[in-house]
C-alpha cells in the first residue's frame, strides 16, 4: 500500500509532463503535416545537392 502512495503521484507527475511535452510539440508544428515528412527520406535531392553539381559539371 505504501508503494502505491509513491507510485501514484509519480504517475500523475509523469502524465503531466507527457501532456506538457505533447502540447509543446503540437505548438511547434510537429503534428501539422503527418504525410509529407514520411516522403522526405525518399527524396534524394538533398539541400547540399546544388553545391555538388557545379563541381561535377566544371570543365
Amino acid at each position, binding site marked *: *500500500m505504501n508503494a502505491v502512495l509513491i507510485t*501514484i503521484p509519480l*504517475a*500523475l507527475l509523469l*502524465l503531466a509532463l*507527457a*501532456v506538457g511535452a*505533447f*502540447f509543446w510539440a*503540437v*505548438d511547434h508544428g510537429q*503534428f*501539422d503535416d503527418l504525410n509529407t515528412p514520411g*516522403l522526405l527520406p*525518399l*527524396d*534524394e*535531392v538533398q539541400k547540399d545537392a546544388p553545391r555538388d553539381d557545379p563541381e561535377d559539371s566544371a570543365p
Partner: protein
Amino acid sequence: MCCHGCRAAAEWIEQLGLGDYYSLRTEPATKPDPADAADRNGCLAWQRDELAEHVVRDLGEGRRETMLFVEGIRCTACVWLIERSLQSLSGVATVQVNALARRARITWIDRQVSLSQILERLARTGYRAWPLHAKALDDLRRHEARDALKRLVVAGFGAMQAMMFAAALYLRGADALDASADALFRWLGFIVATPVVLYSAAPFFKAARRSLAARRLSMDVPVAAAIALIYAASLFEALRGGGHVYFDSVSMFVFFLLAGRYLEMRARHHAGDLVDALARLTPSVADRRRQDHSLERVGVHELRAGDRVHVGEGGLVPADGVLLSATCRVDEALVSGESAPIVRRCGDVLIAGSVLVDGPVDLQVERVGADTVLAGIANLVERAQVERPQLARAGEQATGRFVVRVLSLTVLTAAVWSVIDPSRAFAAALAVLVVSCPCAFALAVPAVITRALTVLAQCGVLVVKPDAIAALAQISHVVFDKTGTLTMPRLTDVETFNDASPERALRLAAALARESSHPLARAIAAACHEVALPAAAQVSSKAGLGITGIVEGRELKLGSSRFVAPDRHWPSHADAILLADPTGVIAAFHLSEQLRPGMREVIDQLKEQGLQLHILSGDAPAKVADVAAKLDIANWRARVSPAEKLSELVTMRAQGARVLVVGDGVNDAPVLAGADVGVALASGAEIARASSDIVLAGERLSALVTARRIARESMAVIQQNHRWALLYNLAAMPLAALGLVPPWLAALGMSFSSLCVIGNALRIGRKGSTVTAPAPPPLHATPRAA
C-alpha cells in the same frame, strides 16, 4: 428560401413548433446580447472600403456578395441557425452555409445593410466570422487541427488513467481495500477526469449552449447533457463517499467522441484542400496586348486598369472590362447564375469570371481585385460545394428527428423508473442518453462523401458537384464525344492549291487556329513549330463549323468544307480542314486520329460494368464508324450538332436511361450540363469544365472506371451505415431503457457505433490494387552514381 437546405431546416423547425421563434426574431431588439468591444471593433474595420474591396464582389444594382469563413460551425444545426439569423437581417438577400467547408456565401443589398453589420450579427449569434482570405484560412485550419489534437490526447491520457484507477475499485472485492483507499481511488479518478471534462469536452458544451440559446436541438445537446450528468453524479457520489462513480466512463465517452470528430475534421480539411486544388486547375493568367499588338502572358494580378487583354474562345474573362471587339457571346453563369449565353457588343462591360462562348475578343480592363479569374473559378467550385448533396440533406433531417426522439425517450425512461424504482431512474435515463447514437446517423453520409471525394481526387477525378457521386453510381449509359475525348487528332499532311507553300499555308492556318480551343484547331496550331506567328484580327468562330479572321491583311476562313466552301463540292476533302481566302481555297489539312492510349481497355472495362456505350460526334460518318469499330461500340451517330446531341440525350433520359457524358469541347458544354453526370477533361475548354459535374485531371479516362466503382461502393457503404445505425439504436435503446445497460457500457457502445460508421467509410477505396494510384510527386528515388 435560398436553397433546399433552408427548406429542410424550415420544415424541421415547423415540425418542432418552433416556427414562431423566428418571426419574433426579425425584431433586432429582441436579442440584445452585447458583443464584446474587441469583436465589435473587428467588425467595424470592414466598413472601410479599402479593406472591403478585396473580399466583396459587387453584383451590380447595389447587390454585394462575400464569402465568409465562420469559426465554430460544429454541426448542421449551426448552419440553419446562421442562415436563419442572417436572413432576418433586412437587406440580406441570400445566405448559403457550407458546414463541411465552414464557409458562408452571403449576398446583400448595400444600401440597407453593410458587411460590418452582418459580421456583428454573426458575432452576436455566437459565431466569429472572417471575410475569406486564402492565407487566413490556412492558419485557421492549422489552429483548429492543433486544438483538436490537444483535446484528443488529453482525453486519451485521462481516459487511460481513469480506467486504471477505476479498475482498482472494480477489483477491490478480492483485495479488501479499506474505505479510505476506496475514497483515494475515487478522488484520483476525479483528478484525471476533470481536465477531460473541462478542457477536452469544452467544445461540446459550447456548441450545446449555443444551440440551446437559439432554442434548437443539435447533436451536441444530448452529448453535453450526458457528459455533465455523469460527471456531476459521480462527483456527488464521491463527496457522499459511497455508491458508484463513473469517472472512467465519462473520460472514455469524451475520448471516443473526440476521436470520431478528429477523423471527421481531417476528412473535412482534405475536402478543403480539394477545393484549393480545383481552384488551381485554372492558371490565373491573361494575355495582355503590348503596344505593337503582340500578346504577352501575364499573371492576373499584374493587370492594371487600362490594359488591353485578349481572350480566346471558351476562355475566362480575367478582369472586368469594356469590350473592344465588335460582338461576342458570354456565359455569365459563374457570376450571375444565369446559364444562357448573353450577347455583348462593342462598348459593353464584360464581367470577370464569365466564359466567352464564341469568338476571341479584346477588352480594356477597368477593374481588378477580388474579381479575378481565380476568384471566378473558385467561386464556381465553392458554390457547388455549398449546394449540399441531396443525400446529406436527407441525413440531416433524419438526425434532427432522431435527437428529438432520444430526448423524449430519456425523459420518459426517467419518469417511468421514478415510479417503479427511483434509485435506478438516474442510471437508466443516463444509459438511454448515452447509448443512443445520433452521431452514427449524422456521420453516415458525410463520412462516406468526404472519403469518396478524397479517394476520387487521389485518382485524378475531381468531383465538382457532390451529387454526382450518387448519380454516378446509377448511370446506365455512357455517351462519348469522339474528337478530343476518345481520339487525339494529329496533322499528317498539308495539301496546297494556288502554288502556296505548305509551310506558309500552315503558318497562316496556325495563326488562326490558335484562337480556337477545338481539338482539331489545337492539333493544327501544335503542328506549326514557328515561334513568331502573325497576329489574327477580327477573329470569330462558329461552333462546330470553323473560324474566320484577318491574318496579314488577308481575310481567311478555316474549317470544314461545308463552312469554308459551301458552294463547291469537295468529295475527296470531306474530312479535311480547309483554309481559304476570298479568292479560293489555299490548302487542305489532313488530320488522322489516334485513339487515346489505353482507350480499348477502358471501353472493355466499362462494358464489363454493364454500361451501354454510345458515340455522338459532329464528325464525318466514315471516321466515327472507324473509331466505333476499333473500340467495338455498336451505337454511334455522326454529324450531330450540339443541339441534336442534347435532344438525343433528352430522348435517352426520357426512356429511363441515366446518362454520363464525356466531352471536352465548347460545343459539348450544353450536353455536359444536361446529362445526369457530365465529365469533362481538365485540358478541355473552360466552359466544358464549368458545365460538368466531374473533371478528369491528367486526361486519363481509365479513372472513369475507378470512379464508377468507388461511387457504387460509396452508395453501398452509405446503406450499410444507415442500416447499422438503425439496427444499433433499435437494439440498444430498449435495453438501456429497461435499465440493463450500465452507463460505462453505454458510452462504449455509442462510441463504438460512431467509430464503426467512420471506419466503414474509410474502407472505400481500400480494396487495393484496382485503385490506380496517381503519379507520385517527382521524387528522385533512383540511386545516384557515386
